[in-house]
């Protein structure tokens, strides 16, 4: 059979690590995948070296607009570790509340995008409508819907008072109801099952070998979670379950993410009801003594690692960030082998790389004749929906 090269990308500008996927396809089946990284590089790590620690926080917040709080928490924790600061208990709880709200907003966003990629636009609209509740809560607390700027070195910048606390608790219950509805929907709706069940599975041993993190690893039955394994902020004091699934396929990832929303709601409720009294910040010096620290945070997509080295001045000597998508991309590449061209959008979307709605070009090059045709991401998505609509693979 003729082999085709199918480049997807090279631009995937939604993340810190935009990726390009080169698929080698035989008919409809993908036989090999090559992943290329490094597009859309802004030079944030270098820019950090010429800014002071407080300015760095705002810059690092903009690595990714979806897990902005995870990045600033990781950086602030690193700097606090070098300084030997212990932040107040109330600040720890507020960090947890914001982090979990961010997780809910990220997972609902993912559910919507996944719905869109499989041609289930009603799910997309429903999920994004309910996501507005979370954004309202975040706006209530921080004053901004995205990029909350809550963290500072030595604590948090805004408080949650009694009135806000009650208002937030009232908004969470309807949300938990909706999440139950989505869990039923995803596990029983034939459209979802046809596109998610047994597609591109990653078995547990492969998930470990490929270094997956976060929901992608947990969907393969691996119980890794920085919140439990290496508790930071107030996670050591808050009871919660690590949601896993033995399935390993795309349905497993959806079940894990939806389960995590339920857990996040419980964590936020517990944290709000047990919010300790006290100050929000401890005073942090402007200059940081020489030293280095590695800080880990469970971002919505998995383990986010920040390395900070200080040289005694008011700006860091080196900042290094390893965002979770980089760790998960290789599992996508492996699990793609043997999958169908029609599955490309949903399999790539399944690790939540925010491939949402930018126009991307796909070039179909027939290797023998050298002829090529150009497809956009949207056309590929429609192709996938049509292909399944015609009853292939049933």
């Amino acid at each position: 059979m003729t082999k085709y090269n199918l480049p997807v990308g090279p631009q995937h500008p939604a993340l810190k690590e935009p990726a390009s996927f080169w698929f080698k396809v035989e008919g409809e089946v993908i036989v090999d995948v090559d992943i290329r990284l490094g597009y859309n590089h802004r030079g944030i790590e270098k820019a950090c070296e010429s800014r002071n620690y407080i300015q760095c926080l705002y810059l690092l917040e903009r690595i990714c607009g979806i897990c902005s709080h995870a990045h600033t928490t990781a950086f602030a924790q690193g700097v606090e570790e070098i300084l030997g600061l212990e932040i107040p208990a109330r600040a720890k709880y507020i960090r947890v509340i914001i982090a979990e709200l961010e997780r809910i907003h990220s997972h609902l966003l993912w559910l919507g995008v996944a719905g869109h990629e499989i041609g289930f636009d009603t799910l997309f609209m429903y999920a994004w409508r309910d996501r507005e509740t979370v954004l309202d809560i975040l706006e209530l607390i921080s004053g901004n819907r995205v990029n909350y700027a809550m963290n500072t070195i030595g604590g948090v910048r805004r408080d949650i008072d009694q009135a806000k606390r009650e208002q937030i608790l009232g908004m969470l219950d309807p949300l938990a109801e909706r999440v139950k509805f989505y869990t039923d929907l995803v596990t029983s709706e034939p459209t979802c099952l046809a596109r998610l069940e047994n597609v591109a599975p990653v078995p547990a041993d492969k998930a470990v070998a490929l270094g997956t993190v976060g929901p992608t690893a947990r969907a393969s039955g691996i119980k890794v979670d920085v919140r439990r394994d290496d508790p930071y902020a107030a996670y050591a004091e808050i009871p919660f379950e690590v949601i896993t699934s033995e399935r390993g396929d795309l349905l497993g990832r959806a079940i894990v993410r939806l389960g995590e929303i339920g857990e996040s709601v419980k964590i936020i409720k517990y944290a709000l009801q047990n919010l300790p009294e006290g100050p929000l910040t401890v005073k942090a010096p402007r200059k940081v003594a020489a030293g280095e620290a590695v800080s880990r945070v469970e971002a919505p997509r998995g383990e986010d690692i920040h390395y900070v080295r200080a040289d005694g001045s008011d700006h860091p000597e080196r900042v290094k960030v390893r965002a979770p998508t980089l760790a998960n991309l290789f599992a996508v590449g492996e699990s793609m082998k043997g999958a169908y061209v029609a599955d490309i959008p949903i399999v790539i979307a399944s690790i939540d790389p925010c491939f949402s709605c930018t126009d991307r070009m796909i070039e179909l090059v027939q290797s023998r004749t050298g002829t090529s045709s150009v497809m956009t991401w949207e056309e590929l998505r429609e192709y996938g929906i049509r292909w399944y609509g015609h009853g292939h693979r049933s």
Partner: protein
Amino acid sequence: MLEKLVKRSQVSSPWLVHFNSGACNACDIEVVDTLTPRFDLERFGVLLKATPRHADILVCTGPVTRQTKDRLIRIYRQMPAPRFVVAVGSCACTGGVFHGCYCVYGGVDAVIPVDAYIPGCPARPDAIIDGVVKLLAKLRGDAPPCAAKNSREAI
């Protein structure tokens, strides 16, 4: 005659194409948010299209990085004239927090002419809707034309 028809259809149902030239995702999700039930930009006849060849308005988010510069120009050239560019977010307006980074050229207007600027980090969906509606008013001729109008043919 034909120009009048084109203008009328553009004003009553502008088609958008969204391009991320290096944004952090925040403005992108807010752009998509405007299409979802809470804000529903579609009630103004606005449709998000997948390809620049169908679009009247290019919605750009993020600073322009070295890697995306050529692509942005290519996408702009693929759009049929008359075409309009909206820069969403502080980064797209001026380069924002990434101003001065070695891999960033600056705002979208460093590469292609821009017709409307919507500041904010990220720009709120309300602000994006307001910006698009103001641009439509400008197209209709209700507002004085901005400086970028004549430079549109520059590229």
